[in-house]
């Protein structure tokens, strides 16, 4: 029998459990017997009916999904709901569609106390609820250094200067008339998982790994534009990218990256970029940390030395145990995380679970993801879902049966260069605990006997 099927014995056990004498009577909105329904028609008990109606489908369905239904069957089947007996909403009632109201729990959120001002802060993407590899545009993580803007694209200009024969200015019309490419890539903040270098600091995968998103980007390869300006690729080993917002963010990009796959993008997931993500133009630097993906991109300068910008001299430098800062750390190394079951979640039952997660590498494709459920003693290779793309998230899944005891879930990715994701211990041995940036260690989730999953580190 496949692991996801319950045996009749399981169902019987569940029923018995629910009717065990001496247990607390279940609230009527979760377990409605004929008697309760009769009572609910009684004026004296009418609050029960109100409670049931208000608690609504979601809560009611939760309990019943376990198979513990009333004698006649499931009221969700027997009592035809309003949506089956009424007229629904017309087309274009919401001209720009929105997620279901039942999904409102999945939002990008700040980590309390991490930053002091919202315009220089970060909001984390709810990885715990994502499927596949594409991040919905509205849930893409945010990092702003000096607030976000909704810039008039007709007034936006993009300039290329420096070591070029012909410094040029392009309008959005110019850029969008050019041949375009579309690519799917992950973007991860260099400080993702940065709060966990010393010890466990945050409860859920949203806060441990949520400065991570993955989208399809459309735009023009920067190489084409540099060719158009007659860039000196012999001397020009670096480019400076600069934003148009108040911070006028700057970062140095290696010319090797530019020649490979850097693009000037105006679209994300089939629509124009969202304002929070740099509308109308941002740099896409596949495999490189998010701070280099300069938003509101206004200028590229070709130069013969790195620029030592603020975010590569004072921030985004990795402190090593010997007191030296690693400068220009850019590549996001091989990494993976189980997104469900994950920290802060509770398993709804014993038995079968699909362990699911994501893996990525700034150096190439994901080759393999191994999963351990015993704290790293033994590992099994997970199924990789397609597509498996360069510098893009890869979804993995593996079957697991929770027997009700303690378990420690971990995932470990290997990329196409053979780089294997290290343990926290191995990483600390070389880099200490004060690096802040580029923590790509193996994440551990403890499943306790009470069904709760929590963030732990293995020593």
């Amino acid at each position: 029998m496949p692991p996801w099927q319950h045996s009749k014995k399981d169902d019987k056990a569940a029923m018995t459990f629910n009717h065990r004498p001496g247990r607390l009577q279940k609230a009527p909105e979760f377990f409605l017997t004929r008697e309760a329904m009769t009572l609910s028609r009684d004026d004296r008990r009418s609050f029960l009916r109100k409670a049931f109606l208000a608690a609504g489908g979601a809560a009611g369905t939760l309990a019943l999904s376990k198979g513990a239904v009333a004698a006649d069957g499931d009221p969700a089947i027997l009592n035809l709901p309003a949506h089956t007996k009424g007229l629904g909403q017309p087309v274009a009632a919401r001209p720009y569609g929105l997620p279901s109201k039942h999904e409102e729990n999945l939002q990008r959120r700040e980590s309390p106390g991490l930053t002091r001002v919202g315009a220089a802060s970060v909001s984390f993407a709810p990885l715990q609820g994502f499927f596949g590899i594409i991040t919905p545009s509205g849930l893409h993580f945010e990092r702003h250094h000096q607030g976000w803007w909704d810039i008039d694209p007709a007034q936006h200009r993009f300039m290329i200067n420096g070591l070029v024969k012909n410094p040029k200015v392009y309008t959005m019309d110019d850029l969008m008339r050019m041949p375009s490419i579309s690519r799917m890539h992950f973007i991860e903040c260099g400080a993702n998982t940065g709060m966990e270098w010393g010890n466990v600091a945050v409860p859920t995968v949203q806060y441990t790994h949520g400065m991570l998103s993955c989208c399809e980007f459309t735009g023009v390869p920067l190489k084409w534009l540099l060719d158009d300006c007659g860039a000196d690729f012999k001397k020009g080993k670096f480019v400076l990218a600069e934003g148009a917002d108040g911070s006028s963010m700057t970062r140095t990009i290696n010319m090797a990256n530019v020649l490979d796959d850097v693009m000037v993008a105006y679209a994300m997931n089939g629509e124009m970029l969202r304002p929070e993500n740099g509308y109308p133009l941002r740099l896409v630097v596949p495999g490189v940390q998010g701070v280099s993906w300069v938003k509101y991109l206004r200028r590229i300068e070709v130069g013969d030395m790195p620029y030592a910008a603020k975010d590569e001299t004072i921030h985004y430098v990795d402190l090593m145990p010997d007191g030296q800062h690693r400068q220009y750390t850019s590549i996001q190394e091989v990494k993976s995380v189980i997104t469900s079951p994950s920290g802060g979640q509770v398993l709804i039952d014993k038995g079968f679970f699909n362990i699911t997660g994501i893996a990525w590498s700034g150096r190439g494709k994901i080759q393999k993801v191994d999963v351990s459920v015993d704290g790293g003693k033994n590992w099994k290779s997970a199924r990789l879902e397609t597509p498996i793309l360069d510098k893009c998230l890869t979804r993995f899944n593996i079957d697991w049966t929770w027997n009700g005891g303690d378990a420690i879930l971990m995932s470990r990715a290997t990329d196409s260069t053979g780089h294997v994701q290290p343990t926290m211990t191995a990483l600390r041995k070389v880099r200490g605990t004060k690096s802040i940036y580029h923590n790509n260690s193996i994440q551990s989730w403890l499943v306790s006997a009470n069904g709760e999953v929590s963030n732990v580190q293995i020593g």
Partner: protein
Amino acid sequence: MYKSVNTRVQRRGATLWTIATLLAIGLTSPVSAQTTAWGKLGRTATPAEIKAWDIDVRPDFAGLPAGSGAVSKGQDVWESRCESCHGTFGESNEVFTPIIGGTTAEDIKTGHVAALRNDSQPQRSTMMKVSQLSVLWDYINRAMPWNQPKSLSTDEVYAVVAYILNMAGVVPNDFVLSDKNIAATQGRLPNRNGTTLAHGMWDVAAKPDVQGSNCMTNCATSVTISSRLPDYARNAHGDIATQNRLIGSVRGADTLRPAAKTFVSPAERKPATAGPAAAAGAKPDPVKLANQHACMACHGVANKVVGPALQDVHKKYSGQPAADVARQLAARIKAGGTGTWGNIPMPPQGHVPDADIQAIAEWIANGKF
């Protein structure tokens, strides 16, 4: 028209090759060799346009405009434009990480900040980290003051940089920083020798420094948990139950309550934040509202985060009738304000429905957290 472009490139230490190329362009068509069908899109940037945008200053000080500023003038600019966020002595961590602190006269000699090798400083200041003086000038010029970037004059930027260096003991009180002496001043920066490129995360062909294990079976004899979230932090990120989907194989843990002792399926457990109470017309749960409207991003119940602990707010007004306090707090939440609890302003919360503000205000006023 290429004169200023040439000047700019020369300042950047361009070789004869580049200069020759630019001269050649000046003599021929300004359009570069374009072989693509779309090559005529875009146009040549004018010198004035390049001057307006090309403001970056490199580590070799290429791009730095001529000018100067004295420490004393920098102090004036600091007190009027910088101090409210960064503190009188650049030491404040209330809004941003400190600028000044943690460097010594010995560090100025060695070019290595010793405090980076030990735990003597609670936070790393800008002066502890910064290895290139050009970036102080560049960043203040491009992005400061935070709410009015690019509003300082060239000489004001020199002056503020001079004052910061003076506060860090790098330059004397009578120092005047200028484009003439900035390169020499770089030689006194406390952490000027504090960076390394010896790592695998810059050059795309470089090797990573930490390689994981391929082991598949019997990889460890024992497993020790070395770190976990302390119980008191259970609710530090709000109610996790409200941060997870309500269907599927898992639910979010109800972190408003202690963890269950034994397994109880969350599908059968009544969520603390929903249910009959709300349906019976009772007031909405203020804890849920406070989380929903992100109050808890800045206020802990028992601890100060950015704003004061809610318990402290309650205590401050506990001598007054709760209804009056609730009314005052509601007005304060709606309008925002500063001064009662320090300098950091609480932003106005006009977007939050009045009923929700009232419920949150009553919750704080009643003090039953």
